[in-house]
């Protein structure tokens, strides 16, 4: 494997610092929103970003953040490309991202999208991130951002958020 050109490495380094505007506990790279960094034939650094939901209001903010970070990092001429295909999936959230979500109190997706349960739209019982009881229930399929649903623990009675499996 050949080493990455320094510009690409510098871009990844700069982009890795960017926190998600709505869930600052995780970075855009952790969530799989920043998908690729490469250099095209004309020498332009190209960064690919995948929006989570088509209507997510954070998409524009994220584009601005990526542009700002690349500008500050002195990586030369760059372009940001929106990647629709393949579509973003919660399977792309890294192990590190899942750990950070849990620590922040958001339960990460419990299923792989292609699993039998995932395909049937079923999800296993999730543990309360505070008291770890499995006695929990969904109280709303939608939450404060497009990517989350709202659940409640029947033991400690605290509500908690769940990162939807999509």
């Amino acid at each position: 494997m050949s080493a990455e050109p320094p510009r690409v490495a510098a871009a990844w380094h700069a982009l890795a610092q960017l926190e998600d505007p709505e869930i600052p506990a995780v970075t855009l790279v952790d969530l799989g929103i920043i998908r690729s960094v490469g250099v095209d034939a004309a020498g332009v650094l190209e960064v690919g970003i995948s929006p989570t939901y088509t209507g997510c209001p954070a998409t524009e903010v994220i584009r601005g953040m990526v542009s700002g970070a690349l500008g500050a990092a002195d990586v030369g001429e760059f372009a940001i490309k929106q990647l629709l295909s393949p579509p973003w999936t919660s399977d792309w959230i890294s192990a590190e991202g899942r750990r950070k979500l849990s620590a922040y109190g958001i339960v990460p997706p419990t299923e792989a999208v292609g699993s039998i349960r995932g395909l049937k739209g079923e999800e296993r019982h999730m543990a309360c991130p505070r008291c770890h009881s499995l006695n929990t229930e969904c109280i709303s399929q939608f939450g404060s951002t497009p990517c989350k649903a709202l659940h409640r623990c029947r033991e400690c009675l605290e509500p908690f958020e769940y990162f939807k499996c999509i």
Partner: protein
Amino acid sequence: MSAAKNVGPLLYRYVLRVGDLSLVLGQRLGEWVGRAPAIEEDLGLGNVALDLIGQARLLFSYAGELEGRNRGEDEIAFLREQREYLNPTLAEQPNGDFGQTIVRQVLIDAFQLELYAGLMSSADERLAAIAAKAVKETRYHLRYSSGWLVRLGDGTAESHARVQAALEQLWPYTVELFEEDDLDREMADSGIAPRLAALRVGWSQHIEAVLAEATLQRPADRPFSWFGKRGEHSEHLGYILADMQYMQRTYPGVRW
């Protein structure tokens, strides 16, 4: 590029037809924000509306490129005349009570799920990519709306009566969803769009299953006389557009 080049003007109209369904339904759902029966449903309907408008944005950006007159998504969404909107008439029907909104939503979610699933194998790569993204969101919407239809249908005598009445009222509009016209036929022949008759099979299966679980009766099909898909709308669309277009018509070129 793909087959798209040969069918440009037709493809433009087809992409608008798909996008207008999402835009008009999303605009309708937006009317619930701040006045839904509970905060969870306020969030639910608002989130579905956001997804729908997001889908419309992707489709309108593409339509603008196909049209080649340098019009962006906002101009296409906000500055067309009523006759140029090509959504099926069902999408523009009033919200009514929460039950009526849910009935309309189940009927359209199930249709969009089949439509996007079919478009994923479109000969047009851009449409296929948008559909692959939208199908995942639509599956979630259908879970939400179907869950509510079961609770309302299999709920109290009052909630059952209300959703059954809404179903009787909205059912005649569903025929238009599957009525193939020249544009649908041309798109299917070019491998760009799925056959509407094929979509009806999956749609009916889902609708039958959810109606049975909700203890609701499927109304009989009746001859239809609605043609929103070719720009001949019910009286309701004009009011939606008046609200939606007010800012852009009053302040031309206004930006967010």
